[in-house]
């Protein structure tokens, strides 16, 4: 759409101008790299370089004091015999598998509720977004811990309804529901994205369906869901990747221990404890690479299966 002037110029360029052109092109390339330089530097020094070296470190024994010692696949082999590692995988998977869909369902349901032109819609939308803004902070982790403690407000309210289960914080069976509630509470961000998606669904589609006598459920499954599928895909991918990396809340709620009884030993927390608590840098690097591979595979599966259920309309890139 922007080539209007370029072909015009190209038409004029005869053989003697070739040289001039390639010179120009080289100058353009130089400018390009000059602009790209900060990012390129950052990419090499802070991303690509570290990634390669962490791959290398994952095959070594390294404690910061002595030079890394090559030990082959030992770290990876040891990981699968490490009870705490296996526990951390279980904890993280439970969190991802239960937390993310619950959060997205809540987000979608409330987005559909709010998708109207009624007064106050903007206010509700903003209010629901607030938890997303503050939910991952240390402050909220502290509050969460206080609320779900023994005789805390949550325990009191539940006891009022006759479901007294005591404090959640110290009960290894209740810490996971507590962490999942914390992430579901932050449904605001995906909700806003859903809401924006819902607004793009042309009203004519619904009107046409109504003419055909479609009910609420029919409209939802045959119009809303397919039309929304790119947004659902995006939210699901982002929230899943995000959920794998939960750290601050787990750290604060368990005092950095992953307790009680390993029930909040999230993958990243264990990685941190191994790397920066015990200074087993090689071991932690192996963990980091396994996480990378796992997220890579999940992303791949998402994209591969997306053809079956994500409906891109028209020429969407």
């Amino acid at each position: 759409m922007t080539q209007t002037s370029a072909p015009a110029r190209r038409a004029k360029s005869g053989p003697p101008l070739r040289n001039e052109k390639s010179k120009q092109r080289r100058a353009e390339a130089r400018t390009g790299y000059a602009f790209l330089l900060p990012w390129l530097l950052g990419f090499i020094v802070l991303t690509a370089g570290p990634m390669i070296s962490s791959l290398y470190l994952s095959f070594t024994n390294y404690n910061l004091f002595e030079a890394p010692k090559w030990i082959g696949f030992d770290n990876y082999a040891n990981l699968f015999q490490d009870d705490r590692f296996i526990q951390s995988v279980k904890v993280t998977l439970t969190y991802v598998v239960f937390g993310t869909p619950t959060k997205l369902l809540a987000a979608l349901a409330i987005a559909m509720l709010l998708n109207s032109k009624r007064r106050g819609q903007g206010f509700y939308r903003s209010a629901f977004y607030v938890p997303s803004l503050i939910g991952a902070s240390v402050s909220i982790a502290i509050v969460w811990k206080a609320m779900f403690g023994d005789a805390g407000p949550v325990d009191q309210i539940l006891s009022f309804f006759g479901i007294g289960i005591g404090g959640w914080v110290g009960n290894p069976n209740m810490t996971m529901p507590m962490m999942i509630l914390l992430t579901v509470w932050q449904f605001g961000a995906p909700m806003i994205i859903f809401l924006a998606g819902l607004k793009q669904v042309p009203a004519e589609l619904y009107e046409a369906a109504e003419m055909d006598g479609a009910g609420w459920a029919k409209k939802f499954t045959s119009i809303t869901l397919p039309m929304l599928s790119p947004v659902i895909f995006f939210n699901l991918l982002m929230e899943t990747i995000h959920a794998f990396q939960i750290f601050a809340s787990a750290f604060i709620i368990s005092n950095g221990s992953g307790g009680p009884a390993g029930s909040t030993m999230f993958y990243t927390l264990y990685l941190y404890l191994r790397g920066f608590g015990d200074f087993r840098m090689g071991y932690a690097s192996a963990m980091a690479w396994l996480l990378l591979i796992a997220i890579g595979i999940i992303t791949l599966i998402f994209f591969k299966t997306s053809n079956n259920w994500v409906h891109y309309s028209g020429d969407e890139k």
Partner: protein
Amino acid sequence: MTTTALKTKTTAPETSIDRDPKSRTILGRSLKSLLFHGVSLALIVVVMYPAVWMVASSFKPSSEIVGNAAIWSSNFSFDNFVKAMDGIGGVSTLQFFGNSLFLAVGSVIGVVLSSTVTAYAFTRINFPGRQLFFTLMIVTLLLPFHVVIIPQYIIFQQLGLVDTYVPLLLGKFLGAEAFFVFLMVQFMRNLPRELDEAARIDGAGHVRIFVSIMLPLMKPSIITASIFSFIWSWNDFLGPLLYLNSPDKYPLPLALRLFVDQTQSSDYGAMIAMSVLALLPVLLFFLIFQRHIVEGVSTQGLKG
């Protein structure tokens, strides 16, 4: 058929299902409206309860906080805040605020500078390898941070930069937060090329086009990036936890953790008050830039 709807961004016409013919009667409408507000308000009560409980608790004496689900108390006072402002171990809470602010403002400057410059390179300049680098940038979007923290830590530690702010800010100045680069690229792609084409014909170079044409046009996305980089930096915990060791350099989240550790949780009131203080700037930001933030999330979502 729906391409137009998807292409028009947030400014899309507010088509809504509200034009449901069944609800066109006045009675049906107000009933529906009542239901809508009823459900919404009930949800608000549930969703906002933790935040309200926290703020209310910060004004209560410690003995009334734990084991108290009620919001109201007859003993509201500012005592907790006075205690919270004392800080920890000779470092005042004001200093923690200052540290957080320095980091947040530094992040904003770094992110805005690096992401706009990089986005310009990706969208407006032709150079070999552009597509490759762009793809790499997209890949880093999905990269878990943890895969690079150990080598990054080793690098900064070898350079003697642990316990300084450099490791926390350098990445922002070097566009390592790919999300913001991506945001800028998406925005810049939608700016009409005719403007810079015209400037080119007038003999303007890339530098001039970037500074005098693009930057002013980028204002909305610069504001969005600033807001989000500020808030993310303000709430960041892992970065400071890894790199900062001296309490006088701590930003608020780390100071809070230190506070929890050191007061042995005996002073619940001050702890909650400090938590509230730590969130205050974020909430103020939200009140002021609400529209930008909500729009930022929805456009980021649609485009991301």
